[in-house]
């Protein structure tokens, strides 16, 4: 997979941020340490939500 495809995949993954039980995780616009601690998925989801 090329880097461009990997970047697209990251963007797609961030649309579906779920917890262990498959329930969607709420990402506050102002961010949260818990979201950052989730790693790349949490940060990309937060950045996206912030731009909305």
């Amino acid at each position: 997979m090329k880097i461009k495809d990997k970047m697209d995949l990251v963007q797609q993954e961030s649309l579906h941020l779920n917890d262990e039980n498959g329930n969607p995780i709420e990402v506050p616009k102002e961010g949260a340490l818990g979201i950052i601690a989730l790693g790349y998925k949490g940060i990309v989801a937060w950045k996206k939500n912030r731009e909305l």
Partner: protein
Amino acid sequence: MKKRKIILIGWDAADWKLMNPLIDSGKMPALSKMIDNGCMGNISTLEPVISPILWTSIATGKTGDKHGILGFTETDEITKTILPSLSTSRKTKAIWNILQQNGYKTHQIGWWATYPPEKLNGISVSDLYAKPNIEKGVAQPSMLESVYPAEFKELFNLFRLTPFDIDGPLLLPFVPRAGEINQDKDRKLTHIAEAIAESSNCHSIATWILEHEEWDFLTLYLKSIDTLCHRFMKYHPPQLQEISDTEFNQYNQVIEGIYIFYDMMLERLIKLAGPEATIILVSDHGFKSGNQRLLANPKEPTAIAYDHRPYGVFCIMGPGIKKDERIFGASLLDVVPTILSACQIPIGNDMDGKPLQQVFETPHKISFVDSWDTIDGDSGIVSPRQTTIPKHFTTKEELQQLIDLGYIDDPGDDIKLAIENTNKESKFNLARIHMFSHQYQKAASLFKELSEDFPEEPRFKTRLASVYQRMGKTEKCQQVIDELNAMAAAQGHNTKKDAPKTKWKVPLHVVLFLEGNNLLAQDKPLKAIKIFEKLEDSMPSNPRINVQKARAYMSMLKYNSAQREYEKSLQKDNENIAAWVGLANCCLIDKKYEEAAEAALNAIGHSYFYPRAHLILGYALLNLHDYENAIHAFEVSLAQNPGLTSARNHLISIYKNHVENPEELQKHLDFIKNNSNNTVIIVSGIPRSGTSLMMQILKKAGYSILTDNKRNADINNPKGYFEYEQVKKLTQDNSWLDQARGKAVKIVSHLLFQLPDNFNYKIIFMNRDMKEIIHSQQKMISEMNGTKPNNAYPAHLEIAFRKNLDRVNKWEDLKSNVEIQYINYNLLIADPAKELLKISTFLDKKMDISNLKKVIDVNLYRSKTI
């Protein structure tokens, strides 16, 4: 064979002392889970406590002199500039190189001294990636080519954070009253934001790799506990007198906040790694908290390291790892051998650590190679200067964070001076590494060079004096102390109005401390005490001074005075382990066994890895007839130091006389039988007490004798003296003792106290009628001088000799590695068989008594008193 998947996580400066309360109150659930499902313990750091050196030691299993990273910065000889320490300066393979060479898919994120990034078969992210890259107040993408393969940088920038992303609500868990802070005047919130962003930038890459890339081994280093501790520990509870209520209330949750945040990240990594992975968490050192905090450090480069505590954290969890176990005696150098052992890959013989076999449910068979550095293979290691360093990299701004934190001095605009300073610090650190690894000669020569090249800087001279002291070179040590005193005196004159100001003040308290210790090393305890008293007047809150005073009193056998000093030390610092052990020892001598046990338990409570404390505890419990607990205490002391003969002998005695356990008894008897090569047999006594005769007996019994035969036989000892010239220099140099293993050597009684603790000594001590000894000595002196014997009886000599004998007796009680068998010379002549049998039993060697009796020539027994 299935490869073991391993994640090695580094939390700079993490400390159990700070984490334990958080774990207990449920604020660090991920770490709590690791502890419950794995092994944990302290990990001892190395010297000097400087992060790039330590983290490279963790990654290589080698001390700094072998791995070559010697500080925060280095000089680029080609461009004549100052750079952060580079991966190209590392002289040896790191764990990621060795594992890659063995077919592991390896990834490395953020470790110190990894720029330029190495060409691993996985992803390599250098230490410079995480650093916020701010230019003129605007956040930029990650700097330079800090990622390999470089194309990943674009991907990683998608989830890269800058301090500007971390604003109000994200800071509230660290600073609940952040809204009250005027950020134009107070930049502390920015520092917290930088710390969160920096850690997140490495953590998020790790999460991406674990989800998207093939991986067998991943290292992740996170710096922010250390940076925030340096900036905010002074605000951490309990409140220090010097900190205002306002500041305390604003910032007292920062340290707790960063630990909780790190635990949240740990939880995510554990989940992504899956149950088949082995997770190792390690820190390079701890951080002083509570009343150990220093508000002001000495004025010298990297003085910030004085904030560090010598114990970091180690925790491991995974398949085949013991659960809910505490381990002891781990060192930073053990991490790589332990990982290699877990992967069943040979350990390099050139590594300085050992595998922590105690963490495995079934210990692996260990194999070795000479060195991984000489085994070719695709390791990904970057050769020196294989990568060009971009020109703009070498600007002062790149080093600003290190300068801000106090890790390095501002190099200023004078590049020549900056290069000189960088090289100086590298050399200084190398000398300290040599000192730590007991290569005293090398350390002394570097400290000497530095002292000569930079005579105005007292720190080189204080270290030189200290290393001379450790080498037993008390005279040279005194010379350096004299030089320091002369410098101090000159600086005293400089306080006059017209005198130039000096940058480097001689630390008088350090010099006095050295002086006191040097007197103690020269067996001049009274003079040492005077120095320590003077020091105590100027530094009344320093607990180490009282410990040294106590040691001086101990050497004079003044146990009550010693006890008082240990107690004083503990009043000042209740965590002073040396003082607890000293106090336990005093109570033991005073036969106050309950108090001795309590003091030993206090020492153990603060530092479990302290074999002598367990030994004292065992001895106290033995005297309280608590045999089961005494066994446990002796067993722990032996687990920590198998060479403690005294503990083993006590166990043997308990199993023989009080607790029936033939298997354990045999185990210890076998150990002694199989490990006698660290034992030195010593024949001792006051001169002319029959020591030469005993040496002849041992020679006849088949023992190797350590002698240089320099002193020839004469009329006073017709069969020879069996002496070894080096013995006389024992106070200056004890390196020759290595040659004495398993042999017999003659050492006069007044030198016994200088024997180092790293050997076991079986001492045959000759007693003889004191008047005979003195008469024989006088006769010998008159024969040597060709004068008439002095008939006046020197009563003062007899008193001195008797004091010496009393001291030897008590010294044995204090030493766990010393056993003495007293042999009476007069009885040996009168009834040889009985005394020779004692020797045979003591040395656990079958001897032909009738053959040995032939050595004893009654005609030579010429100084009878009757």
